[in-house]
C-alpha cells in the first residue's frame, strides 16, 4: 500500500514529528511504500540542517535525512509555510526539497491513504 504523510508541527516542540517518523519506519518495515512526506505549518522546521539537539537526545532532522537516503523517500517542504518561518534552500538538510502546496494535494490523490500528524 502507498502512504502519503503530512507533518504539521516542528521537531521537539510537539511529538507529531516523532510519531510520523515511527509510523513511516514501521510502514517501510511492513513492505509498504511512502509516496511522500509533506511538511506544512510549523512542520517545515523539521528540515533545517542548522538543528543541533543535545547529544543524548534523538536528532530529528538527521533521522529524516537518513530515512530519505536509505529508502529514497520524497521529503517536501511547503514553500509558502517555509518563507513565513525562515526556512530557505540554503539551510535545507539533505533529502529535503522545497515545493508548492500542490504536492500535498497530489499526494492525497496518488497515495492510497493520507495520514496527518499534528497538534
Amino acid at each position, binding site marked *: 500500500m502507498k502512504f502519503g504523510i503530512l507533518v*504539521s508541527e516542528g521537531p521537539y516542540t510537539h*511529538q*507529531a514529528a516523532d510519531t510520523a517518523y*515511527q509510523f513511516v519506519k514501521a*510502514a517501510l*518495515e*511492513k513492505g509498504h511504500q511512502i509516496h511522500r512526506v509533506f511538511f506544512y505549518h510549523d512542520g517545515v522546521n523539521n528540515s533545517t540542517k542548522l538543528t543541533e539537539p543535545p547529544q543524548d537526545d534523538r536528532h530529528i532532522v538527521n533521522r529524516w535525512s537518513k530515512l530519505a537516503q536509505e529508502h529514497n523517500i520524497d521529503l517536501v517542504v511547503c514553500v509558502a509555510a517555509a518563507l513565513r518561518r525562515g526556512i530557505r534552500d540554503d539551510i535545507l538538510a539533505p533529502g529535503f526539497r522545497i515545493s508548492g502546496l500542490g504536492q500535498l494535494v497530489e499526494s492525497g490523490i496518488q497515495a492510497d*491513504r493520507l495520514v*496527518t*500528524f499534528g497538534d
Partner: protein
Amino acid sequence: MLNIVNKSPFEKTTLESCLRVAQARPNGSALLLIEDAVYAATKGNAVEGRIRDAMKTVPVYALWPDLEARGMQDRVIEGVKLVDYGGFVDLAAEHNTIQSWL
C-alpha cells in the same frame, strides 16, 4: 473511518468532539489513542466512563509505546486494544479513510 486522537482528554475537548461525531454513526469507525491521548485509555480517572461508553459502539485502540513512555502501562482499561507502530500502520491500511482530530 479510523479516527486518531492525540490530545489529553483533561487538557482539550478533542476526544469529546471526535466521539460526538464517531458515535453518531459508529458503523465501520474505530478510535486510536496516541501521544497524550493515551491517558484516556487508563482507568481510575474522571474520563474512564466516557471511554467505556464509547467502547460499546466503537472499537478503541491505544498506542503501547506512548502508554509506556508515560508510565501508564499498568492502568489500561480492559477492552482497549494495544498496538505498536506496526499495528498503527495495519489499522491505517485496514480503514479506507483516516482522520486525525487535530
